[in-house]
């Protein structure tokens, strides 16, 4: 865009020209309108640097007893696939070696509660060690916070080495403030805490407000403290290992979101079991809170052309009987605010704001400010437990299926058929292998219509009773039908008769 940068050229020329005392031209006038910069008293460089060194050292000395070194061994897994989808790519899963990572932890409670700025993968933590005061402690995962992308660890027998950070109240750091970054090293550096110095560049608001730091010594997983020795920020370890601009979460907000008071002693099954709450999602799942809608931010150009606010979120689908439907939400409603907070950002950041101002828990209410056909409305919905979706494993066919509910229909790309059972995975080497795939909707099994899981089960039971050798399956693949013949004598593990 050369024509955009061009207007700068005369200004720069004139600024350069001022030194050569060229007569003033109009742009200089505007420069002179800037408020005068207050003169700064001369500084003794040596004394200044000494003061910086003392302050940095003092902060590190004050806080190092609250920081620990955490070493986690994680079993390399198949990603976040979960129950199904394993066989989708074909080929057996290649097990990888375990991964080890070391990071700084912050002691939150004297009973051994430690916060690390990374969400550990559920069920894949093999080993957890914490070094505090030069000694090694065994620990376990207490809670993985998906919203914060952090994990709370619990040391079994903490001893006196765990000194919690004192509660400190302070305002969000201002632009230009200098913060000390602290990082705890591992065994090879004697678990020392290393300080660094960085400047606050600004604030980015979103799901959580973030402190934007200048680069330098502020890396991933560091703790930020102000010059009075109070922890003000914590930088997360990015999951892809990349971080463009160092950003830190505001520590007091992190503590508040962790709701430590409520969950003081919760047992360590969090690692194995998915969280029941705290999930910011409208996706139906096992026992998760849901509203039963899908949404999408409004396109900015469209909003402008249609005289609608750019800071809005479209409601796309509202599932029948869902909390959203009960609350009166309808497809094509435009959400412009939530819980008395109007959205002030557009695009994906509006979705972040939606997350920030809601607390999705079963039984809690959420109030939406809605524009429907241009008219404002306020609608209140109450989060409910998402309906459970049972998967059925049909070993003899080599497939896993799920009833095609309205929400599943809406949210599964490529499926046009509304009734039937959805194939969610296919077992490699089974009868269905290379013949069927995830996304196929079974509409007939053994020439019997399949409208739901019940009909599918009945037809399957009948096949098993008859000890049928082959079966004809009619599927909807995208928007057309096809036939598949399965050889039932080809059972997994040689004999797979489950009936």
């Amino acid at each position, binding site marked *: 865009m050369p024509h955009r940068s061009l207007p700068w050229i005369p200004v720069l020329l004139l600024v350069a020209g001022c030194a050569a005392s060229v007569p003033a031209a109009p742009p200089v006038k505007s420069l002179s309108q800037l408020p005068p910069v207050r003169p700064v008293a001369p500084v003794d460089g040596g004394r200044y640097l000494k003061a910086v060194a003392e302050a940095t050292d003092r902060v590190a000395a004050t806080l190092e007893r609250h920081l620990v070194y955490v070493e986690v061994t994680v079993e390399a897994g198949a990603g976040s696939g979960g129950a199904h989808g394993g066989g989708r790519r074909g080929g057996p899963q290649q097990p990888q070696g375990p991964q080890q990572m070391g990071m700084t932890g912050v002691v939150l409670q004297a009973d051994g509660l430690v916060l690390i700025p990374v969400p550990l993968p559920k069920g894949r933590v093999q080993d957890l060690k914490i070094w505090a005061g030069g000694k090694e402690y065994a620990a376990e995962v207490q809670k993985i916070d998906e919203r914060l992308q952090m994990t709370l660890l619990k040391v079994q027998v903490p001893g006196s080495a765990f000194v919690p950070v004192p509660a400190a109240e302070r305002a969000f750091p201002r632009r230009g403030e200098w913060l000390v970054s602290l990082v705890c090293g591992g065994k090879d550096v004697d678990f020392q805490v290393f300080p660094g110095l960085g400047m606050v560049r600004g604030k980015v608001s979103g799901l959580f407000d973030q402190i934007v730091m200048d680069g330098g010594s502020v890396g991933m997983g560091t703790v930020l403290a102000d010059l009075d020795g109070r922890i003000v920020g914590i930088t997360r370890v990015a999951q892809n290992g990349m971080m463009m601009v160092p950003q830190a979460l505001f520590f007091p907000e992190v503590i508040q979101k962790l709701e430590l008071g409520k969950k003081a002693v919760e047992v360590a099954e969090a690692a194995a079991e998915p969280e029941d709450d705290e999930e910011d999602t409208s996706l139906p799942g096992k026992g998760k809170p849901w509203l039963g809608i899908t949404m999408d931010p409004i396109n900015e150009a469209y909003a402008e052309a249609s005289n609608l606010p750019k800071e809005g979120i479209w409601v796309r689908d509202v599932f029948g009987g869902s909390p959203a439907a009960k609350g009166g939400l309808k497809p094509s409603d435009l959400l412009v605010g939530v819980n008395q907070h109007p959205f002030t950002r557009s695009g994906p950041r509006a979705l972040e704001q939606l997350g920030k101002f809601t607390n999705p828990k079963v039984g809690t209410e959420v109030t939406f400010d809605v524009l429907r056909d241009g008219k404002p409305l306020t609608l209140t919905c109450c989060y409910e437990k998402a309906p459970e979706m049972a998967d059925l494993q049909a070993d003899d066919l080599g497939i896993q299926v799920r009833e095609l509910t309205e929400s599943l*229909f809406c949210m599964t790309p490529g499926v046009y058929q509304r009734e039937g059972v959805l194939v969610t995975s296919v077992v490699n080497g089974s009868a269905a292998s290379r013949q069927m795939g995830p996304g196929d909707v079974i509409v007939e099994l053994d020439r019997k219509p399949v409208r739901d899981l019940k009909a599918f089960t009945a037809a399957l039971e009948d096949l098993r009773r008859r000890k049928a050798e082959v079966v004809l399956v009619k599927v909807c693949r995208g*928007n057309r039908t*096809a036939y598949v013949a399965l050889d039932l004598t080809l059972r997994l593990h040689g004999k797979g008769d489950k009936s």
Partner: protein
Amino acid sequence: MRAESLVLVLALAAGSPALAEELAAAPEATESIGEALFKRVDPSVVMISHESALGSGFILTPDGYIMTNGHVVMAPDAEDPKDVAKRITVTLYDDRKYPARVIGHGLDPDVALIKIDLDPGDEPLAPVTLGDSDAVHAGQRCFAFGAPLGLKRCLTGGIVSNVDRTDLGTFVPIIQMDAPINHGNSGGPLFNEQGQVIGINTYGFEQGQNLGFAVPINVGKVLREHYLKHGRILRAAVPTVLFQHVDDVMGKALGIPSGVLVGHVIPGSEADRAGFLAGDVIVSLDGAPVSAHELADVQRFNWRLVTREVGSSVTFGLVRPRAGAEAEAREIVFQLRQDERAPRSGNQVGEVPARIYETLGLGVQEVGAKARLTFNLPDAPGVLVSVVQPGTSAQKAGLSQGDILTRIEGVATPDPDRFAEELEKALKGRKKAIRLEIQRQKQTIQTAMAPYYALAGKKVAVLEPAAEAEWMELLRRGMLEAGAELVLLPPGEVKAAEVDALLLVGGPGSVAFQEDAAVAALVREAVKVKKTVAALGPAAVAVVKAEPSLLDKKMTTSEDQADKAMALQAKYTGKPVERDGKLITGTGFDKPAAKEFLKALVRALTPRGD
């Protein structure tokens, strides 16, 4: 004697004296076959080159019909798949060169028929002998002939690796061989040991070695007839989107041992009305039994059916399985109608032209019922988004390939013409944001596209030749997308002072501009008031002829006008596009050259755009 008996003893030990004798005789035999074959087929194989590609071909008739691949002669144009290269030259084995024209071409199957015209007294051409590709067997020896990487008259050999290759997603099963082929072999013949053509060398796997593929010559024979008759393949609509094969397991499950299974019948289609049902098994065609045990069989069955004459009738013998009852036998007489045009798929550009708005980065095309089923597209009435260029307004609007664009500014756009009408209405109004409604699978999405009007507020007077204009549509659309206002008046009524540029459209008909006094006067006036003057093809000569001061500027024109330009002592450079100050000229040779000319014109008129 001793040596001979030793060979015999060893051979006996191996248990196959006949094979041993063959092997002993083989080296000499290989040499003679290769040598004889080379001598015989060398005069029948040609090299084909044009502005953007190089390939091979083989002579079918003494008067100059030549077969090659479709992709060898196509123009690299995403907008019109029927477009072919403009300057095709055929080089014979003895280095004689002839210009060629395309009789017909397609990309799947990838076959083209071209023609060269011999001058009286020219030595007649030596045609190849066509073999029968249905009689080809895996393992038999084969030879590829062509111009790999431009190396003319190059013979390579190997064996046929497979004759039923369906893995490449082609319309028909193709022959796989291990005779090495490279770029430039495309369109060349694959011979059997008898020197008969069994295939047309077409594809190769670059990451593999000696994995070459050829279109069976029997497919080429069918296409030759279609091209001679219709200029393209005229496909008949079969009763289903996809036939399915009936293997042993399927046969058992259906209770019908063999046949061809109908997987889907489009509701409301001809086949639906004729009484076909999904699940029917076709067991005979005009009384002759048919079966398909694997995918290759299905493809061959399908090919035979779709290449039958459109309008003819076929009698299908069906067996319809019934739950808990005897299967029912039926006959359906089905009239073959012309199939809908196929859209782009994979690396095949398809048969449906796209309408591409380059600046917006958006291309759309029509989409039929069958294509929607094949590509899993929603059934909403609209046009298919086929091109979305990165970094453009279309991409910023969130559009993506496979969307069905259903409305512009609230008005339905069921076909490309309505789409163009509504889009251009919005562009003419220089709308800041153009609202669109798209159907993406099951979702209806409202979005908007914000064009960047580089030429907002600019007026361009467009002079179109009375006949045989070229690239008018492209130029008009380009100017409109950039936000320019077009003044379409006779030259006598245009006031040069009131416009920002004068655009003279090219094409053979624009030669007339060279003798048109009104055009000359307008050009002189435009130069006098320092306006941009742009001209394409022969019109470029008209411009420099009208205003002598322009003879000092570098210019270009179409090849056939070069003599005239030089006679005028213009600074003719022959480049596709030439911009010198306020004069912009172009050859208009092909679409890329016309697009480049358009870009130069937009840049020249964009404030500080250079």
